[in-house]
């Protein structure tokens, strides 16, 4: 998903050019900064990171009113991009935070971007955007020197967008005055960023830019776009994946006044000015489907994944497994299972499309507006430049609104073309579950060995179906091999009976559950404290620091598990960040219910741009992750998704909440790494290890539902 081949790159550059022209037509006078990727040192550093989109750019405009607009192809999913990006610009440009407007996710006026996922916005965008703002400041200082008839800009200072000579306070001019009536375009040069000691806004937690919109209900999401003449579409859905439509009688539905029935290839859509009337009409359609009667279900999926897995790919290897076998005096073999889970954002997939002549405009709930434009354009046979995607606020994404999840937008586009009317398609909750690209179910088999001194000497790790991300152990193990077969993308047909895709920290929650459970199991069998056993196998000082910080704050007392206390620990790296999570649980041994009392995560994410925003992400990851750990699993049979709403599919709610503590490790000299995902990978393992510590029963399958734990606890 983050790799760009030559064709994609060429297309992206082309798209960027088109975007720029349109942008200039739209935006009048002002100072415009364009970004050329090879010019900024910070960018070059970032561009060496794997997965960096090499044609990434950003626009900044300083208007005649003094307001600064930042245009980026990212989207606001709730992670706070509008706020953090404004902080970056405000600081480097020396304008007030309130004077910065952030415009996101509009393919016509924002530069091309790969999308909002992978905890990338601050990690990769921050140095770029800071560079753009620093360049703008340098240009404005040069202009001010000329305006004030000074020989050089060296003695000029800036505060809140006003440039003043430090030698003569009467010599001053504002950014707004400087750009008055001018149209200045500059490409980014090599301008240094401010040292950390000079930052005023970066590193603080100002009021979120989206706060007023969101607490007043004024903020618009895709389903809130209401256009004159718009029709709501409800589309006939099959009862199961793999079902084929045999016949559909729409005659009863057609009798409803104002109903328009559209049959187009495989689609039957009921259109009405009122959504509820379209829904009612859909209910009157008599449809017969031929149903599939085979395939794995949620009980047989794990055997199926092992049987259907493609050949293994090597993730990493050190030493020789045969040597490790020789050295090992104690071998532990275990199999870990993880289930399909849904993204279940509160906002279902939504889109509004309208067509004017040859131009198609789509408002969509998406994390990847540029991919969505491409997918819609291709499906419609339109040139990409004739499709504009506008992304309003997105009501949660978590990976479920990325590439290849533009079903609703494509339907809205098709229907607007067929009818000439603006069309809204908003999935109901059942459609949201049915068309979700789930986190894949997975099987992980680990064979490990320790020598006489209790040191790990052997690690053989095989992942089926879940993916190899973060599967390599970061523990010091001389003889190890990690392999993965199948995952959340690029699978052979038939491996996963349901659509799969990236789910917040793809593959890593499964691999961390398996690895950290297994490390815990080995430590337990050796009678060692889980923290101490980890530390003696870790040489990375950053990992030591997060583990020691988390356990100190938690008041962890060394004891081998199971200690009966219900304490569990897990650590991981994700998105270049380090995270350690400690949890305390109480298990009701009669019912199998797990009551999570306390969760503490310590995270080293390098330099922190927005501490409160970071804490929100950590708290959100812990809370959301309790779902896959304790309750969430998608049940399915014969292609039908059996979970259709929040009655059977339980997501974390207020009464589940533990006391949540977050610790941000102070590490400003290291570049910012990802924050949106890391703790979600550790919470499953931390809770599983806590359950083991409480009960002496090792949970080998997530979610640890009450029924599953009760059954395990009743086994002798």
């Amino acid at each position, binding site marked *: 998903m983050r790799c760009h081949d030559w064709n994609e790159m060429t297309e992206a550059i082309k798209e960027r050019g088109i975007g720029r022209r349109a942008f200039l037509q739209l935006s009048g006078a002002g100072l415009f900064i364009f970004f050329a990727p090879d010019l900024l040192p910070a960018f070059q550093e970032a561009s060496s990171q794997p997965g960096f989109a090499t044609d990434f750019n950003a626009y900044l405009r300083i208007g005649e009113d003094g307001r600064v607009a930042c245009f980026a192809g990212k989207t606001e999913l*709730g992670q706070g991009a509008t706020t953090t990006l404004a902080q970056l610009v405000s600081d480097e440009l020396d304008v007030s935070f309130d004077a910065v407007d952030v415009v996101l996710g509009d393919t016509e006026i924002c530069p091309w971007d790969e999308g909002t996922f992978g905890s990338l916005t601050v990690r990769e965008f921050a140095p770029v955007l800071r560079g753009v703002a620093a360049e703008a400041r340098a240009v404005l200082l040069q202009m001010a020197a000329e305006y004030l008839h000074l020989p050089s800009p060296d003695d000029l200072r800036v505060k809140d967008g006003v440039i003043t000579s430090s030698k003569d306070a009467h010599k001053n001019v504002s950014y707004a005055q400087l750009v008055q009536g001018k149209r200045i375009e500059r490409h980014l040069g090599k301008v240094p960023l401010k040292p950390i000691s000079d930052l005023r806004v970066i590193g603080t937690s100002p009021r979120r830019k989206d706060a007023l919109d969101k607490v*007043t209900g004024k903020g618009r*999401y895709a389903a809130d776009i209401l256009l004159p003449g718009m029709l709501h579409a409800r589309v006939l859905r099959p009862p199961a994946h793999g079902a084929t439509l045999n016949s559909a009688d729409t005659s009863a539905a057609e009798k409803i006044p104002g109903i328009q029935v559209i049959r187009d290839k495989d689609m039957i859509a009921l259109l009405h000015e*009122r959504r509820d009337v379209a829904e009612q009409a859909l209910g009157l359609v008599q449809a017969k489907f031929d149903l599939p009667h085979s395939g794995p279900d949620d009980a047989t999926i794990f055997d199926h994944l092992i049987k259907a897995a493609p050949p293994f790919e090597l993730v990493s290897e050190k030493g020789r497994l045969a040597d490790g076998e020789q050295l090992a005096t104690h071998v532990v073999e275990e199999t870990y299972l993880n289930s399909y889970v849904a993204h279940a954002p*509160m*906002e*279902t997939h939504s889109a509004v499309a309208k067509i004017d002549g040859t131009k198609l405009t789509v408002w969509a709930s998406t994390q990847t507006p540029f991919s969505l434009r491409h997918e819609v354009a291709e499906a419609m046979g339109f040139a990409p430049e004739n499709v504009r995607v506008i992304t309003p606020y997105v009501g949660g994404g978590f990976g479920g609104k990325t590439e290849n999840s533009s079903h609703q937008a494509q339907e809205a586009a098709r229907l607007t073309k067929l009818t000439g009317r603006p069309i809204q398609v908003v999935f*109901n909750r059942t459609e949201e579950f049915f068309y979700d690209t789930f986190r894949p179910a997975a099987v992980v088999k680990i064979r490990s060995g320790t020598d006489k001194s209790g040191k790990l000497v052997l690690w053989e790790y095989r992942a089926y179906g879940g993916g190899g991300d973060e599967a390599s152990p970061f523990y010091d193990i001389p003889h190890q091999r990690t392999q993965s077969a199948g995952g959340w993308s690029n699978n052979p047909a038939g491996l996963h009976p349901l659509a799969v895709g990236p789910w917040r920290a793809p593959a890593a929650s499964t691999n961390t559950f398996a690895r950290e459970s297994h490390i815990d199991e080995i430590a337990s069998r050796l009678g060692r404290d889980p923290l101490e056993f980890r530390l003696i196998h870790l040489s990375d000082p950053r990992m030591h620091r997060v583990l020691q910080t988390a356990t100190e704050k938690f008041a962890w007392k060394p004891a081998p598990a199971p200690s009966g206390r219900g304490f569990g620990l897990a650590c991981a790296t994700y998105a270049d960040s380090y995270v350690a999570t400690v949890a305390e649980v109480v298990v009701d041994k009669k019912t199998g219910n797990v009551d999570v009392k306390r969760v503490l995560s310590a995270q080293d994410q390098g330099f922190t741009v927005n501490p409160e925003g970071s804490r929100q992400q950590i708290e959100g990851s812990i809370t959301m992750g309790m779902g896959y750990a304790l309750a969430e699993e998608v049940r399915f049979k014969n292609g039908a998704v059996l979970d259709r709403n929040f009655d059977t599919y339980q997501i974390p709610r207020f009464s589940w*909440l533990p006391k949540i503590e977050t610790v941000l490790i102070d590490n400003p000299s290291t570049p910012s790494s990802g924050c949106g995902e890391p703790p979600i990978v550790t919470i499953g393992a931390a809770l599983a290890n806590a359950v083991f510590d409480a009960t002496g029963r090792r949970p080998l399958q997530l979610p640890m539902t009450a029924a599953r734990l009760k059954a395990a606890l009743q086994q002798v």
Partner: protein
Amino acid sequence: MRRNISFTLNGKPVQLVDDDERMLLWVLRYDLGLTGTKFGCGAALCGSCTVILDRDAVRSCITPLKDVEGRHVLTIEGLSSQERLHPIQQAFVNHHAFQCGYCTPGMILNAYALLLKGSHPTREEIIRHMDDNLCRCGSHTRIVDAVLEAAAATTGGN
């Protein structure tokens, strides 16, 4: 049944001629343009569509028009007066008690109903009252803190 239906919406009278079985959610969002009330599940399972009916929080996705006849409906759009935020809204801002914001209007209105009932709920009472409003971003602890702060700043909801 199609008939005259009148009720008060955010302090102003509304008169409709409509099918009285239609759900309030769709009328609010699409007929009256009050899109702050959100669709999340359509089955009273998530709370995104929560509005206030007289003094109670109800799920507008399962509330037919006939049930609001002659009564007072308050939506998120009616909570702040002029540009002044209600103390609950202000507390949500102060605590960053939202991320994507999609569940936020329902959360705020459900909390409003609680504060109408008793001025100083405990943390446990807030959790119990809010439990059926779902949030996927995981803002729960901040929401509880915000409601506690709002409760301290207000009595009886207004």
